[in-house]
Structures are given as C-alpha cells and as structure tokens.
C-alpha cells in the first residue's frame, strides 16, 4: 500500500478518461457474467424456491445448523490463533537465538511441522488423544483440531517472524547494540516490532488460513460450518445453495478478520513512521489515499 503512491504519478485527464472507459467495460462484463451464471443455474434446476427459501423463512436452518457450525468454526479458530501466535513467536525468536543448540532445536521443530499436512497431523493427534484418553471424549476432536492448526500455523508464523527480522536493515540492530542494549533487548524493542509490521499482511493471511483450515476438522468428527452445511444440504435437498451460503459466511468472516488486521496494521505504521526506515510506510505525499486497495 505504501509503494503504490510512489510508483506512478497522479493520473492526468487523458489517463482518467482511459480509466473511466475501462471501468465501464469491466462493469458490463461483470453484469453479463452474472446473467450467464443465473441462466445456467436456472436450467440446472438450482434456483427453485424450496432450495433458497428456508434460509429466509425457516429459523431451524440457522438455529440447528448454520449457527452451530459457525460457533464450532470460530471456537476452534480463536483458540488456535492464540496458541499459534505464541508458538510462532517463541520458535521464531528461538531460531534467531545466539545460542546454537536453541537455534537448532527450534529449526528442526519448525521445519518438521511445516512439512506434514495439517490433515494428517489432525488425524494423528486425534488418534493419540482418543487412545490415551487425554481429554474428555467430546473434547478430543476440538483438541486435535487445535493441536494440528497450532503446530502447522505456528511453524509458519515462526518463519514469518524470522524472515521479517532478517529483512530489516542491518543498521537497526547495530544501532541498538551501539547504544548499549543487549541482543535480547535489540530483538524485543527494535527488531520484532518492525518485523511484525512488515510481515503483517502475510500474518493476516495465516490467521485467515487457520479459520479456513478448521474446516478440515470435518474429517475427524469435529462439527464446524462445513459439516453442518453438508448436513443442511441433505435435510433440505439444497446442497448447492447450502454450499454457496457456507462460502459467503466463510468469506464474510475472513474478510472481517482481514479488515480488523488492516486497521491494526495502519495504526502500527503510523506509530513506526519516524523509526521504521525501509520497513514502515513511506510518508504519503499530500495524504494520498493509501488504502485504495483494502487487503
């Protein structure tokens, strides 16, 4: 978002006209595409009243299926996000440690958990928990979902932290050391805040991934939005509409999460403007709309 304003001049009258024409063409194309989709759905018997009405008229659709699913998804995601952030921070910092064994152990852990598919970890964790009775029976699926999401996404976040710190100008750390801070202090008060700001877009992406990947819980009897919309589709014979509604719910949820994170990102940028150097946002000339493209 910061690069944008310095990449090109403000458009002149000619360019503006060209942009307007492109906008009209784009809008027309979108309307045509929408029309084709609706027509095709009609011929495929997917637009019948009984398939869509329940979402508006039947309270049971929301009470007994979709809201239960939403709650299942959100619960698993929230817990996993907190754990994954902690895991990522700890192991990311661990990989930057000056103590060699710590660095090694953290590297091995991170690389391993990045390598195994979430689904397979989930199934494995579920097997371990149920066989040893680690949690109450009804809690095992949730625990397995959270475990797998935490380990995988935590490892990815650790990578983000590390590469974020590495992408900082070297002078930042050196300056910190020069004024007498320890390496830990430099990391904590100079490098990490800037690295996290720089990596925030990718970090948000990871949180959204967690929210979405909770849908894999379907495979180990964890009941979340996708499971419930499947069940809903069977009960009301409207599988395609149920999936479309589920997709809309997922997109809305994740979009809201991204918006929230963008707000946070902006605030961080504003604060770090004077110290941020290469990483924080460049000053915006004349207060140009930096946020023409919300993430």
């Amino acid at each position, binding site marked *: 978002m910061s690069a944008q304003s310095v990449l090109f001049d403000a458009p002149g009258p000619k360019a503006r006209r060209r942009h307007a024409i492109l906008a009209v063409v784009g809008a027309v194309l979108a309307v045509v595409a929408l029309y084709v989709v609706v027509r095709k759905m009609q011929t495929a018997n997917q637009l019948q009243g009984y398939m869509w009405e329940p979402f508006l008229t039947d309270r049971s659709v929301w009470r007994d299926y979709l809201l239960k699913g939403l709650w299942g998804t959100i619960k698993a995601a929230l817990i996993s996000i907190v754990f994954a952030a902690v895991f990522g921070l700890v192991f990311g910092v661990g990989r930057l440690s000056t103590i060699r064994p710590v660095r090694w152990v953290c590297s091995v852990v991170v690389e391993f958990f990045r390598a195994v598919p979430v689904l397979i970890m989930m199934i494995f964790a579920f097997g371990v928990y149920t066989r040893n009775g680690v949690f109450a029976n009804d809690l095992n699926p949730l625990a397995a979902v959270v475990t797998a999401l935490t380990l995988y996404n935590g490892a990815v976040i650790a990578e983000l932290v590390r590469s974020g710190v590495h992408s900082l100008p070297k002078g930042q750390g050196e300056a910190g050391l020069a004024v007498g801070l320890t390496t830990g202090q430099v990391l904590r008060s100079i490098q990490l805040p800037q690295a996290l700001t720089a990596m925030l877009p990718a970090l948000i992406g990871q949180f959204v991934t967690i929210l979405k990947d909770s849908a894999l819980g379907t495979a180990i009897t964890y009941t979340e939005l996708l499971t419930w919309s499947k069940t809903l589709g069977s009960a009301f014979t409207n599988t395609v509409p149920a999936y479309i509604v589920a997709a809309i719910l997922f997109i809305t949820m994740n979009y809201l999460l991204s918006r929230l994170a963008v707000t946070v990102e902006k605030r961080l940028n504003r604060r770090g403007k004077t110290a941020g150097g290469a990483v924080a946002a460049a000053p915006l000339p004349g207060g140009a709309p930096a946020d023409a*493209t919300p993430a």
Partner: protein
Amino acid sequence: MGEILSNYDVLAAFWGTIKLSLLGTFGALVLGTIVAVLRLSPVRVFQWIGSWYVNTFRNTPLTLLMVFSILGLTFILGLQLNTQDLNSNAFRWAAVMLAVYHGAFICEALRSGVNTVPAGQAEAARAIGLTFGQSMQHVLLPQAFRGSIAPIGSTIIALIKNSTVAAVIGGGEAANLMSTVIENEGSRFSVFLVFAIGFVILTLPLGLFFTSMSRRLAVKR
C-alpha cells in the same frame, strides 16, 4: 506398512500429487504475479479486480472451491476441461483451483515483499523516467521476489499439502488413495504413517531449500 506399499500403488498416487503440485505452483506463481501487479497498478478498476480476487479466493475454504469447480463450473455452467474423460476433468480442475486459491497467497506474499523495498528505490526508478511497467519489471519485482522468498516458499509447501484436498472431487492423488486404503483396511495407524512420511519426503527438503534461498538471496541493506 510394507503390506500397504505392496498392495496399493502408493508411488503412482504420489506421482499424481507431484504433477498436481507442479501444475498448481506454476499457475499460482503466474496468477499471483498478475494479481499483485493489478493491485499495485494506477488504474482503479484493476485495483478493485485485484483486491476482489484476493478477498474472494483467500477467504473461501479450498474444499468448497474444489466442489464448486465440479458441481458448479463443470456441471451447471458446462465448463469442461476435458470433455472425453471425467477423471481428467476433475484432475485439471483440481490443478486450476489449487492455482487460483494459492495465487491469492502468492499475491499477498509479493505485496509484503514490495513493502520491504525501500521507497527510495521506486522514487529513483521514476526519477530516471521509467514507466510503471518498467519500474515494476526492472526494479521492484526482482527485489520483491527475493524479499518474499520465505512466504512464497511457505505457500508452495502449503500448496503441495493442500493438493490432498483434491480427494473431495476424486483428483487422483495421494489422499484419494488413502481414503481407498482406509475403506478397505480400516483406519490403522500404519496407513497414516505411510502417507505422512510421503509428504515429509516431498516437503521437508523444499522447506530447507527455501530457507537457505531466502538467506542467500536476501537483499543486503
């Protein structure tokens, strides 16, 4: 474990995974770069298209995208990628959906890479008279690619593992075989071990490779 390896063609299934991943990665890199350029371009409409793309595809579960590609695109809209053979149609759609979905992540990785390029670089490029396209091509993207190697690596690794989701439309890869094995043999631990090890073999070297690349190619500042 040996019994599973001798009774089922695990290698062929993983070959399917590899093909799917290669196609998906190639597509995702191309799409992601295009969308990143769109999002950074001066044309408002392009920016909207770019952010619409990212918001839609980054936020939908891949499982749903896969199912839509067959139920919605192939059967309702009639977009067949192979009119002769349903299996290869499913496989190709799986590759396309992997590319579409991960393209959104590549775009975001590139954007965060662009964010690490000092503003002075872009200003200098413009000062010497480069157009938007030229400054992208010669100054910004090369540095952005190097700066975003780590997140791109994570995305590619995620793509390989996410190719398992293609099983929901019968994409003909490892997870597809795994569900067949579970159906016939029951869900035994050894079954998971075989497939987990397969994925570790595929992704672990790649993870190490990207880590060392990101360190070697990092732009010194």
